[in-house]
């Protein structure tokens, strides 16, 4: 990814900035209906040309157990979400490609769509060859007898679907020279794309090279394989011309893979002092129309995190994903972590109100003084030290009195499983680095340069972090799930130490001069099989005006990031994530009507926050070193986990109304 000094000149090279000779532009004809029989389709490439299913890989892949639930590349005989690709047309120019969409003729017989979790639970199966709309259902934790606790509280919550909406839309260029498929793509994970394309198109892995173009944000939307990527690659191979596809914003809003869309039912038992003695829960995920997406594993992932930073010893949770006539659920910054925190912290606030305890007191009494493994599977270090201090640093008691502040505690579970790979080449006195996961705004080059300087004494200005390219590494994972500083950082350290050994073995002794005078290459793949979690706490205050409009006045957070490798970026990430958290609570959702028509069709409807929505920010970085060689912990998703919790509680206190869902509409807050 180009560094900032190029991006400020407009000299970035995003996918749409790349022009290959003889290039074709692709436009996709899409279903206008949420559910219908596709009686016939004529024009462009369509189901008659390519019968294939979207294959797996990347953060957005949840595993597909039943082939009947596979997401077809072109709709096959049925359509199951508004915007589902039905055909694709090609032209020398993007304007003409859109004109050619008029040539596609499709005949539909509308069917009654399933648009809610309740309809999915009760209604007929969407797909032939299945008995229900369940994608998965499993228990976490262990059954337990009702504890003899005097306090029993139950409540139900929902978090609406949100579209990721990075500023740069999805896009790629596929180029086939007769034996090799080269893909330039806006992505978080070149290896996911490569694996997915190779398996779907039945190409040998060595025949596919994926290169990351500068990527204008992703937030989870650019790790998975999409039908359009496969169509473009297929067309490039068929027409023997490079094929470029760039989506429009309305396509992103309809047919990318939105996140959230989860319901939670919680029942907790607690003693009079606020100690929670048992936790029962149900997590229901609206997984969209097909299996294999994040929706297939997110219920389990959410369920696992329900106990959060608390030492709750008895817990039993049912995790369910059901299918609806919407695009498959994808990861959106947080990807289940925000939902788990929301369900849990809403209950903790309910408990605080029930016992007339402070929101901080009821939380602190449930934190742990030792490492703890939850019955649901989450492993945490002792949480009381961090949170005890956070409550003081955030000045919660004072702001609770003066401004009715909301408070949230959370755990960030970094998605470090799978680890990461790194390669370092030394040649002609210059250092070139490649990582398996691909930055898209997070300035990974800053921590790469810093770590190499620390490990090897190399001056930072001779180091280049190159763009992601599957031909430069044997394998790699991806940049998502608050993992990169942790796993890519660890891989860089490991590769650097391997390099050091190479120099020692050749020159007898390691010095920077010895390193730079030679030619070396070191590549490592560092897997990670442990959990690496970090804590965070957020405080928020709001004002509600006479129209029910909420202004978030202050958002303060304490975040434990292990080690601050890039303090300015850390602050920027926290602020950006805070605005996304505010967006979730106040403005953003995907809305369909009962007939399945998509109503949120442009950025205005999508509800992205603007500069005027900013609160006052207070950020406290805490550094409790992790066990990683470079001590880092994850960060990226932390604000989207903690902020909605605190803001919702602040709204609750300011309005006197119990809040059970996001987004919260002004109408609900009118006096």
């Amino acid at each position, binding site marked *: 990814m180009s560094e900032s000094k190029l991006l400020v000149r407009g000299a970035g090279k995003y996918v749409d900035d790349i022009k290959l000779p003889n290039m074709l532009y692709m*436009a*996709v*004809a*899409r279903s*206008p209906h949420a559910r219908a029989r596709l009686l016939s389709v004529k024009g462009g490439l369509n189901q008659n040309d390519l019968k294939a299913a979207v294959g797996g890989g990347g953060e957005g892949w949840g595993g597909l157990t039943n082939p009947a639930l596979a997401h077809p590349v072109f709709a096959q005989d049925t359509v199951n979400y*508004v*915007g589902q690709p*039905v055909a694709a047309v090609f032209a020398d120019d*993007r*304007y003409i490609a*859109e*004109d050619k*969409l*008029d040539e*596609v*003729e*499709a005949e539909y017989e509308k069917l009654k769509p399933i648009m809610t979790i309740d309809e999915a639970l009760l209604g007929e199966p969407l797909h032939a060859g299945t008995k229900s709309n369940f994608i998965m259902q499993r228990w976490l934790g262990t059954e337990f007898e009702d504890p003899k606790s005097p306090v029993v509280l139950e409540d139900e919550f929902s978090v609406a679907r949100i579209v990721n909406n990075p500023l740069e839309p999805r896009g790629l260029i596929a180029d086939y020279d007769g034996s090799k498929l080269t893909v330039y793509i806006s992505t978080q994970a070149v290896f996911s794309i490569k694996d997915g394309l190779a398996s779907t198109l039945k190409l040998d892995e060595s025949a596919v090279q994926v290169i990351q173009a500068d990527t204008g944000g992703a937030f989870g939307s650019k790790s998975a394989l999409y039908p359009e990527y496969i169509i473009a690659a297929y067309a490039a191979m068929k027409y023997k011309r490079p094929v470029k596809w760039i989506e*429009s*914003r*309305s*396509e992103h809003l*309809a047919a990318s893979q939105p996140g959230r869309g989860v319901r939670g039912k919680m029942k907790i038992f607690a003693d009079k002092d606020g100690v929670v003695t048992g936790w029962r829960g149900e997590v229901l995920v609206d997984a969209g129309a097909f299996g294999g997406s994040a929706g297939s594993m997110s219920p389990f992932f959410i369920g696992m995190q329900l106990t959060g930073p608390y030492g709750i010893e008895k817990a039993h949770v049912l995790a369910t994903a059901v299918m609806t006539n919407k695009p498959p659920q994808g990861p959106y910054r947080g990807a289940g972590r925000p939902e788990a925190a929301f369900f849990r912290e809403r209950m903790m606030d309910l408990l605080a109100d029930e016992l007339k305890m402070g929101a901080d007191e009821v939380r602190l009494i449930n934190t742990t003084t030792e490492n703890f493994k939850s019955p649901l599977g989450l492993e945490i270090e002792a949480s009381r030290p961090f949170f005890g201090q956070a409550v003081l640093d955030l000045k919660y008691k004072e702001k609770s009195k003066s401004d009715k502040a909301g408070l949230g505690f959370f755990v960030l579970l970094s998605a470090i499983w799978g680890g990461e790979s790194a390669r370092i080449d030394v040649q002609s006195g210059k250092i070139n680095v490649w990582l398996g996961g691909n930055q898209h705004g997070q300035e990974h080059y800053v921590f790469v340069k810093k770590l190499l300087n620390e490990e090897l004494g190399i001056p930072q200005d001779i180091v280049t972090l190159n763009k992601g390219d599957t031909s430069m590494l044997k394998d790699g994972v991806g940049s998502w799930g608050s993992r990169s500083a942790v796993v890519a950082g660890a891989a860089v350290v490991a590769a650097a130490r391997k390099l050091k050994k190479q120099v020692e073995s050749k020159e007898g002794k390691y010095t920077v001069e010895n390193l730079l005078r030679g030619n070396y290459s070191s590549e490592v793949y560092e897997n990670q099989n442990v959990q690496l979690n970090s804590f965070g706490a957020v405080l928020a205050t709001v004002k509600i005006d*006479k*129209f*029910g*409009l909420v202004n978030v006045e202050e958002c303060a957070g304490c975040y434990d990031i292990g080690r601050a490798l890039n303090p300015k970026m850390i602050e920027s990430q926290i602020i950006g994530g805070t605005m996304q958290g505010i967006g979730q609570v106040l*403005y953003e959702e995907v*809305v369909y009507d009962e007939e399945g*028509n998509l*109503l*949120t*069709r442009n*950025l*205005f*409807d999508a*509800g*992205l*926050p*603007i500069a005027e*929505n900013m609160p006052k920010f207070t950020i406290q970085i805490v550094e409790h070193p992790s066990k990683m060689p470079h001590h880092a912990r994850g960060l990226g998703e932390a604000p989207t986990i903690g902020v909605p919790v605190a803001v919702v509680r602040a709204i609750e206190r300011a309005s006197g109304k119990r809040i059970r869902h996001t987004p919260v*509409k*002004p*109408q609900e807050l*009118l006096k």
Partner: protein
Amino acid sequence: MEMHAHLIVFISRKIFLFIGSFVMFPRPFDYFSPKNLAEALELLQTLGADTKILAGGQSLIPALKLRTLSPKNVVDITGIKELSYIRKTENMLKIGALTTTGAIENDSEIAALLPILTETASEIADPLVRNLGTVGGDICHAAPANDFPAVMVALNASFTIASKGRTRTVQADSFFINKFKTALKPDEVLTEIQIPLKECEVGSAYRKVKKGSGGFAIAGAAAQVSVADDNAVSECRIAMTAVGPKPMRAPEAEKALVGKNPEAAVLNSIAKLAVEASEPVSDVTASAEYRRKVLGILVKDAVEASYKRAVMGCYEKS
């Protein structure tokens, strides 16, 4: 920018419904850029009905990009510089139809004479859109959520309309017929807006509630209040945005204010009457019920602010 009356055609057989399109570039059209008004009017006569006028383009071009409109001809009138002006006469403010929203927002004379126009302009869309969008375009596009229509109705403005060989004047009250439909005929162009000016004893204000980026009104209320020597209201005009297919008057509310001072109880009852005169619909941005609730508050705010301006010294209205 002006748009002639049209119906959005529901294309049933083809894959793209108006509500269902995912495109972002316009269809082809023939382009004309007349250098003066006479040339423009001549073109409108000869080109026929499948023609749209391009002014600021901030409403027309988005519709062309989504292909909800695909006219054969586009007549770009932005080259007609003489249609962009702000002029004060003894008892009239005259604004050329091509005056940009941004120019109105930043005009110090307007801020002194008619701050209602300043506050209206400054809350339309965003500063970039205001650099191109025109007051004439906002009026002639006549989308229910556009702000200037209700404001012009409240101010009892009149519009000069030109066609080849003819000019006529239409009161704002009679100009807005339905959503996206005005009294303009296919060969006509709005050229000037006239707003009656009175030095003293009249005040006006616009208040609206909008949603975030893009700033479309969820509901809006424009009011003009005139007072007699004893500061009792002698006349009131109320027009409401985004709560009906066109700017909605509230005649019962207006009558109820005459002869009174706008204290709390009076304001409450006129708000109720105004809401009863509205016809809001629910859409993805807001429910009809929410629109009604905030409309009541907005009418009170607009009337109260107008009254305050009316009883202030002459031309010290900000």
